[in-house]
């Protein structure tokens, strides 16, 4: 028995509750309003919208400029990630009272395995209503709860109608409730998969469920089999409590306030991103052997290169040197960049370093330097110590993400912190 708990318009309703508590006269949920980053820093993307804003055709992910064109008197609120974390933590803590097997799938979604709590809690639908009502009364925002036999059924059920609802999706209800939905509504079906399916006239979840699985495999390999199983409500993935999730990578990226046009600027941004990514990786006690760099040009072309090192390292300088080589291999300064990112993979927790004949610097010496810098930053703040190249103040010495360690255990098998 799995529950999927999903906060309705999470960022917006959390902000609305906070503002009402501060004496704001209007509930943001009742007027056309959105949560959006600052367009001056090129972060003007709609992160969440109210139901009245949805009525104007405003969509999550579109630009603020576009949204304002659809609704000129739109109320725009800047995001507040600390508040979102508090709300998410509070919701998670309520859920833990019902079952210890709770997985934070994202900042506003949790899976709850109620199989072992069923005897204690009784009727699952009644329990789901109780959780929904408690979150509404105690925390002030609404959630949708999907109840099903497995994760996919619970997840799909929570998406049916919003807000503040409990829906079930038992195996016998799948043909009636899930199959009439457009195929794009199915979990794991994105734009590319939808386009492939529509080419062979699969338009609803039911069409996909009744398609030949071998045909799906021929079309999309293992992903074809996966979506075919999901369309039939088959999913054996267990709910994994977050403290048991093994982190497989650390990523950090940023959209720069203005285009990066010179190599010098790009190096600095890359260094500041690498500093943060390495700091996070060392904090969870890991070293890595895979470094990848991705860039996005101002014409939205995306490039990425990665390198598999013959040894493991946790050194910021060593990883930065690899990142520079990767950047040099894919960017020749002809096209300005709007986004840069670094990702560290193949993490190893043993921290047993195989020394390499190819390394030109002493890794142990660098490790000591990094440890010292980390401890200074932990004690006195990020700006307490920085590299000399950042002294002119043109680029922050550490940037990217808002993470301060609290996101570490959110997410599925692969944590990509730059998504937050």
């Amino acid at each position, binding site marked *: 028995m799995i529950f999927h708990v999903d906060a309705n318009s999470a960022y917006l309703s*959390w902000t609305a509750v*906070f503002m009402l*508590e501060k004496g704001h006269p209007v509930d943001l949920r009742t007027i056309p309003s959105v949560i959006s980053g600052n367009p001056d820093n090129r972060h003007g993307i709609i992160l969440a919208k109210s139901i009245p804003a949805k009525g104007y055709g405003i969509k999550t992910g579109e630009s603020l400029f576009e949204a304002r064109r659809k609704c000129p008197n739109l109320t725009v609120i800047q995001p507040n990630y600390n508040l979102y974390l*508090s709300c998410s933590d509070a919701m998670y803590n309520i859920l833990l009272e019902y079952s210890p097997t709770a997985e934070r799938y994202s900042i506003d979604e949790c899976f709850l395995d109620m199989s072992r709590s069923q005897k204690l809690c009784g009727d699952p639908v009644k329990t789901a209503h109780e959780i929904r009502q408690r979150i509404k009364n*105690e925390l*002030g925002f609404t959630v949708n709860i999907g109840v099903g036999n497995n994760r996919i059924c619970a997840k799909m059920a929570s998406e049916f109608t919003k807000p503040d609802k409990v829906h079930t999706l038992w195996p016998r209800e799948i043909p009636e409730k899930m199959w009439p939905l457009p195929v794009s509504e199915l979990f794991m079906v994105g734009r590319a998969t939808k386009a492939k399916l529509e080419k062979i006239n699969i338009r609803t979840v039911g069409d996909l469920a009744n398609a030949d699985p071998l045909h799906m495999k021929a079309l999309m390999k293992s992903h074809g089999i996966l979506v075919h199983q999901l369309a039939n409500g088959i999913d054996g993935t267990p709910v994994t409590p977050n403290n048991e999730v093994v982190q497989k990578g650390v990523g950090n990226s940023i959209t720069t306030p203005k285009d990066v046009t010179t190599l010098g600027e790009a190096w600095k941004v890359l260094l500041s991103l690498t500093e943060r990514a390495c700091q996070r990786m060392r904090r969870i006690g890991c070293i890595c052997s895979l470094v990848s760099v991705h860039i996005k040009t101002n014409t939205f072309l995306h490039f990425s290169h990665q390198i598999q090192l013959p040894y493991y390292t946790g050194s910021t300088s060593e990883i930065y040197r690899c990142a520079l080589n990767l950047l040099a291999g894919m960017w020749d300064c002809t096209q300005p960049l709007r986004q840069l990112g670094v990702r560290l993979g193949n993490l190893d927790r043993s921290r047993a370093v195989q020394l390499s004949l190819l390394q030109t610097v002493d890794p142990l010496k660098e490790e000591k330097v990094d440890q010292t810098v980390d401890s200074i930053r932990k004690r006195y703040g990020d700006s307490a110590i920085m590299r000399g190249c950042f002294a002119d103040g043109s680029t922050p010495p550490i940037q990217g993400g808002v993470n301060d360690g609290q996101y570490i255990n959110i997410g599925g098998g692969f944590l990509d912190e730059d998504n937050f």
Partner: protein
Amino acid sequence: MKIISDPIDVLNIGQVGGKPKPLRWKRRKEDEINQVIKIDSIVDIRDENKAGIPSHIYVCESSIDDRKIRYEIKLTPSTSQWELYRY
């Protein structure tokens, strides 16, 4: 009562094993002459966790100009801030 959420300065005493007990308070607006209000009685104390921010709400009564007025003040322990919450 309407939510105001104005920051206030509170004189309070700590109670062993319990929540702070407010005694007197005044508003923090600089352009006004801020009267110190004595809390005559605390009618109720409740805990809230709206938007995931734990707080203690004190329902208080004070006599102002020979009138007994009931209002709520809020303490947010994470920031140690007091507010005139609802009035």
